[in-house]
């Protein structure tokens, strides 16, 4: 018998320059240090049952990313969060821990959308309105050796200009179609001939869908 715990975490500052695989290895060690009764796979080289919702690119900051672990036992979610926060490196913090109901989809399979924030000083409200009025926004997408054309407009759920020229984006994500924030910035840059910087993007939240198909935060 085991329970799946969904762990929401943030990553800010210099530590953003580590890659996704290293981030996974980091959390595996953290789980060991925290002394969590985690479930391991069978076989000669058992590994922790751990799955991340969405890979974090090098340099991307996050205020809300998720991974799941299976535990054989646990005191309560708050204690697990405290235990993990007791052994974190600077810049990484566990925000919350939730126990998933039995049979819930794993973090990666649940992803439907994600929110991003990126500084975009050249962008005006006018441009944004024009952009959103377009019925289609075709970009060139490279898949392996081939380049195909893709309409990203349906995957753009929301765009807003917020304080300090920060552009907020709610984009379709997951295995069912994934819009990268850099693709949206690229399209803005091309259409309005403005400069955009797709290197310093902050992910704010990742969503799944509830029974009615409404977007809800993963944990």
């Amino acid at each position, binding site marked *: 018998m085991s329970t799946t715990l969904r762990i929401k975490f943030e990553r*800010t*500052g*210099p*530590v953003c*320059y*580590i*890659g996704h695989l*290293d981030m996974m*290895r*980091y959390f*595996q*060690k*953290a*789980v*060991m*240090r925290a*002394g969590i009764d985690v479930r*391991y796979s069978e076989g*000669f*080289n*058992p590994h922790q049952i751990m799955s991340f919702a969405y890979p974090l690119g*090098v*340099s991307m900051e996050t205020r809300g990313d998720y991974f799941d672990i299976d535990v054989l036992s646990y005191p309560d979610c708050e204690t697990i969060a405290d235990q993990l926060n007791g*052994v974190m*490196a*600077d*810049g990484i913090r566990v925000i919350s821990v939730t126990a998933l109901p039995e049979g819930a989809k794993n973090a990666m399979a649940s992803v439907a959308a994600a929110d991003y924030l990126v500084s975009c000083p050249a962008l005006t409200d006018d441009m944004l309105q024009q952009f959103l009025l377009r019925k289609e926004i075709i970009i060139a997408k490279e898949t392996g050796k081939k380049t195909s054309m893709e309409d990203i407009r349906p995957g753009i759920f929301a765009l807003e200009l917020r304080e300090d020229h920060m552009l907020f984006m709610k984009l379709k994500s997951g295995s069912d179609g994934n819009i990268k924030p850099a693709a949206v910035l690229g399209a803005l840059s091309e259409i309005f001939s403005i400069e955009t910087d797709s*290197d*310093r993007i902050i992910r704010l939240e990742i969503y799944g869908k509830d029974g009615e198909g409404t977007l809800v935060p993963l944990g």
Partner: protein
Amino acid sequence: MNTRSLALSHDILMKIEKPARYIGGELNSTMKEKARVKLRFAMCFPDVYEIGMSHLGMQILYGMFNEMEDVWCERVFSPWVDLDQILRREQIPLFALESQEPVSRFDFLGFTLQYEMCYTNVLQVLELSGIPLSAKERTWKDPIVIGGGPCIYNPEPIADFFDLIYVGEGETRYRELFDLYLACREEGVSREEFLHRAGRIGGIYAPNLYHVTYAQDGTVQGMTPEYEDLPKTIRKETVTDLDAAYYPLKPIVPFIRATQDRIVLEVQRGCIRGCRFCQAGQIYKPIRERSVETLKRYAGELMKNTGYEEISLSSLSTSDYTGLQELLEYLIAECSARKINVSLPSLRIDAFSLDVMNKVQDVRKSSLTFAPEAGSQRMRDIINKGLTKEDILHGAKMAFEGGWNKVKLYFMLGLPQEEDADITAIADLCNDIAALYYETVPKENRQGRIQITASTSFFIPKPFTAFQWAPMNGMEEFVRKAMLTKNSIMEKLNKKSISYHWHEAGTSVMEGILARGDRRVGKVILDAYRHGCIYDAWTEQYHHDRWMEAFERQGLDWEFYILRERAADEVFPWDFIDCGVTKRYLLREWERAKKGETTSNCREQCSGCGAASYQCGICISAR
């Protein structure tokens, strides 16, 4: 929360390979308020981050220094070639990982020198830090540049670049040196006067306060200190009680995968064996063990503080650790409960080690390692490798019966007194092991063909070994010997079961020159660096021709340093260092080697090497 800002801009970090090498902030790294410390020490491993972070010695000194309230020790590594170019082009000074501040602002810059081929990287780090390469040009504005590690048992080739050299184990004298430094700064004495006073501390050598003279034949005649109160010999520092010595129980855990991505438990220091080619075996004498109790406690703490999924035992010859069985039984039980792997070092193959390996490894995937070092018994006697063909075949037979079918064998080519028959014996041994497999394991039980991997490196005579007088082979001879090994393997019945690898010859030749060179070699190192040599330990970065050209430009004959046999009474550049083991003993060993006579190990019988003068370890315990 996150007040650390990085020395490198976002744009640079996104342009280079593995930016996480340069960001610091790893678990268990130490941040201090610089206003609250009196002395800042930049500790450098002059190679790339992943290599440097795998080195236990650095973790020991880092942890030990940071336990001192008035000291803040930070880390520096060689920037990889991509960042190196950017730092030069954009004139960004090299920085330490923790504070991200320029190295030039530190009080000390310490280098650990683990292999000779890192010398040009020392110059890289100095230059990128804006510190004059030549120690004589430095002022109080520059950090005190100090070197340690095994290479400094012959510090002469790099003497020009160092203010101080620490001979021996770092645990013992640094506090004294720091106190002297702080006192000298307060007193306002000259930098040279500080170096002079430091040179009177045990184990500390101030190279530029010594003058070297050479005889007509080019060998060293003598060395005179510039001050009468400086010692004529520098005696190695040794930790006498390992259980009482500092051990880093909260080592830094890198974000990116280091070469050594696991807990390292140093079970003992030194070695009882007297392999005549091995420098570590001599300079770390006498062997000193940590108690099993201490190690059990360390293991538990380390698992809790790092979260590593693997633990490995470290020493020069772990099979010789007297508490091995008890320690391994404990670790295996403890680790299997916590799902931690026990990674075994290359143990001598016997019933015990096979049993242990069977418990912790997947037999079908793991391989057995033998290090016969030489193919023939004659040669193994010359090098005093206490291993016979019977030992190897017996071990292999037991292993085959236990289900293993992968064997790795390590050999050296170019050993003293070597004849071609000794080389072809390598092929014989490999073939015999393969044949033994087919004899031992019935057809129906075989998991495919046996896989034998034979690797050869080229023998490099090192200071403080019995072979320090020995000639080394040149490049062509090395290549010829590698080809001979290859061809003789190809002639064997079981050639399809044997794969053969050999080490780069050029780097071996260069390592030999740097290992036994004198102070004049320093200008060649500088010249080679100026002509683009860097990361020489990385085969794809190594340029043998550039080094040879540097010798030519500097008018120095490299052959002098490696090709000739040295006379029994020759004065060596490193003779002023006293590592416990005496030159008289080593010479006796050299003579015995030439006669093919073996010498017993420390546990069997004391052979009077001289290390007993340290009054510790096996030298004072019951055998």
